[in-house]
């Protein structure tokens, strides 16, 4: 498996393989159900959860409405605090800015805090091509990196791996990147964590450049916030001389006061904790305390396009908690890789097609990768109506034609005409009922074949309801 998502097949094709992988299915079922149940308990503890959810939605909505104002305020505050702000329109620009900044330090390696934005732009691959080695330091990201794998979950990117698989990866790969795993490493969580700790420690102590993302940026003070569980992020944020943070422009909040809401809803929604173990905040630079140089790269990369869409823009409220992934029945069975993006699951199905467009096969298939069951909307801590956006994006995909949708449109129009002519509909229903003895169990043709592969067709009735009504009630 390669480390990038480029050239992914459409979701149904990728999922076709995934649902047959019994190890993957077992890993995902166990992990998602465990987090799902814990989250429900953590959320139920708060009597004012509905109000917090609504407040989070309002704060994000109003911030996005005046995003230009808050970003300029943020830039002024970061600059005043000793940081430097860079604006990147797309992934290429962001990668170039970061590469130039690292090269200017004379270093050829960096340590990384877990970051979705840098995954999104493929920063590690870009740095590698420029001769700079990026070390992931989040435990799960380390597993993905060592396994030359792709992340399959926003919060727990190695969710598709079980302990035995992780032990094997550590044993065979750690030595290639630095300190080897112990020879007698077992799959006990304590031993695995200790092996990772020793492996990473030498990277923390050596690195001169750290790269991060951020969960929030506070416009009024220019403060960045990273929430995490392991403390490895804090190592990267405090030990290096230079810190470079790549952050999506939608991560800004106006004031510290706003964090009151999100620092309650984010940990409970993501890890089901009342409070995450490490919350790091930093404002520019401080002499003799932490990095002496701080660069903030503000990333657009399709976000202003999403912002222009009145229905789709709500996806930018996302705080990357992953609750929607953990509750999603489709994600649970197809796995994260099928989504062909670093943003899998329901939020990925609405975010990716907005950030990347819907021209590729996989991106055009993502809005359809949902049964619209609504479980994602229920758990979203910023009340993103994911089903609404999915259907909205389906309209865009259907409108652009393309594979499968031209015929579908003809069929929809034909069905629409029949349904607008009840007499014709009734005649069709009668014809189907009369020939019911002739219908086979499995049918060919688009739609019918996919249906009858695993399910019998309904047994057709002797007559449609409207004929019963005519005979018995009129």
């Amino acid at each position, binding site marked *: 498996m390669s480390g990038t998502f480029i050239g992914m097949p459409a979701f149904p094709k990728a999922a076709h393989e995934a649902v047959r992988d019994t190890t993957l299915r077992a890993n995902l079922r166990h992990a998602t159900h465990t987090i799902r149940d814990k989250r429900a308990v953590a959320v139920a503890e708060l009597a004012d959860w509905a109000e917090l959810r609504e407040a989070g939605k309002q704060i994000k909505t109003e911030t996005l409405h005046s995003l230009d104002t808050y970003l300029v305020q943020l830039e002024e505050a970061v600059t005043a605090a000793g940081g430097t702000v860079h604006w990147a329109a797309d992934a290429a620009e962001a990668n170039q800015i970061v590469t130039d900044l690292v090269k200017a330090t004379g270093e050829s390696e960096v340590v990384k805090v877990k970051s979705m934005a840098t995954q999104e732009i493929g920063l590690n691959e870009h740095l590698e091509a420029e001769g700079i080695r990026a070390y992931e330091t989040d435990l799960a990201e380390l597993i993905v990196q060592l396994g030359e794998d792709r992340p399959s979950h926003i919060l727990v990117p190695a969710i598709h791996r079980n302990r035995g698989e992780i032990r094997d990866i550590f044993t065979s790969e750690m030595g290639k990147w630095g300190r080897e795993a112990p020879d007698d490493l077992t799959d006990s969580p304590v031993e695995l964590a200790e092996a990772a700790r020793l492996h990473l420690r030498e990277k923390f102590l050596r690195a001169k450049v750290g790269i991060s993302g951020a969960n929030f940026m506070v416009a009024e003070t220019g403060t960045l916030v990273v929430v995490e569980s392991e403390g490895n992020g804090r190592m990267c944020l405090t030990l290096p001389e230079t810190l470079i943070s790549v952050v999506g422009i939608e991560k800004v909040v106006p004031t510290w006061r706003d964090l009151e809401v999100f620092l309650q809803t984010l940990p409970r929604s993501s890890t089901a904790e009342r409070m995450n173990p490490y919350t790091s905040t930093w404002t520019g630079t401080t002499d003799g305390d932490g990095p002496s140089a701080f660069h903030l790269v503000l990333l657009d990369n399709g976000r202003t396009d999403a912002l222009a869409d009145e229905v789709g823009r709500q996806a930018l409220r996302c705080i990357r908690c992953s609750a929607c992934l953990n509750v999603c029945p489709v994600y649970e069975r197809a796995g994260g890789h099928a989504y062909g993006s670093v943003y899998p699951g329901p939020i990925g199905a609405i975010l990716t097609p907005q950030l990347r467009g819907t021209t590729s096969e996989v991106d055009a298939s993502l*809005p359809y990768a949902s049964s619209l069951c609504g479980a994602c909307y229920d758990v979203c801590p910023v009340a993103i109506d994911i089903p609404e956006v999915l259907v909205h994006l389906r309209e865009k995909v259907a409108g652009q034609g393309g594979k499968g949708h031209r015929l579908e449109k003809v069929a929809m129009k034909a069905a629409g005409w029949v349904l607008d002519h009840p007499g014709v509909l009734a005649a069709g229903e009668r014809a189907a009922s009369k020939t019911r003895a002739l219908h086979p169990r499995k049918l060919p043709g688009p739609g019918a074949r996919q249906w009858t592969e695993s399910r019998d067709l309904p047994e057709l009735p002797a007559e449609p309801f409207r004929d019963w009504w005519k005979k018995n009630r009129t």
Partner: protein
Amino acid sequence: MRVALFATCVNDALHPSTAVATVRLLERLGVAVDFPAAQTCCGQPQFNTGYRRETEPLVHRMARAFEGYDHVVTPSGSCVAMIRDNYPRIGSKARAEGRGDTLAQASDSLVPRTYELTEFLVDVLGVTDVGAYFPHKVTYHPSCHGLRMLGLGERPRRLLEAVKGLELVELPGAEECCGFGGTFAVKNPDVSTAMGADKIHHSLSTGAEVLCGADNSCLMHLGGMLRRQDAPQRALHLAEILASTEEEPFA
């Protein structure tokens, strides 16, 4: 009180027994029901597949067909959710596109009068014991639209619990989607089937003879899988259980 039945296209063509049961049940409870023949489909399959404009004529048709009725009752949670959640969106999008108010008016007129069957029974008629008799072991799948979009809550369960002879058993993982999802079932057949297989595994684990639901589209998917496996369980709409009595038992 003028009450109309919205049978839905799925029930009209494929499951008329559910619509017949709804008529018999309501008549038994003293409600005179009408079936306006101009009705066809609410447009949910088209809308949810991305064909909003193709859905618009059906919104008009629905509003015209049910004009003048105090209540429009339908034995389908997903069709009610389509009307309640999406007709207003169709109306406001048309307005935003400068195509007038007629769709919004059609939506405004129909939405407040539309009821899912268990809502109508419990909220409007105020009954939970409908005098039904069904001596079988039953488990209930709540279906996503009824559970999450409409918030039917305990209504179906209260109705089932009052049925004489019926033994209601808990369905494990009841809140999880069955995998039907309209065109999802054919656009993503592998995931849909995997979800359905898990639902049926849970359903069969209860030992129930009947898997009951309030949405025949989900039951068409689950029932089709049960029949394919020759499983000792059948899918059956709630209305057919509630219509069954000691004098006229379910056939």
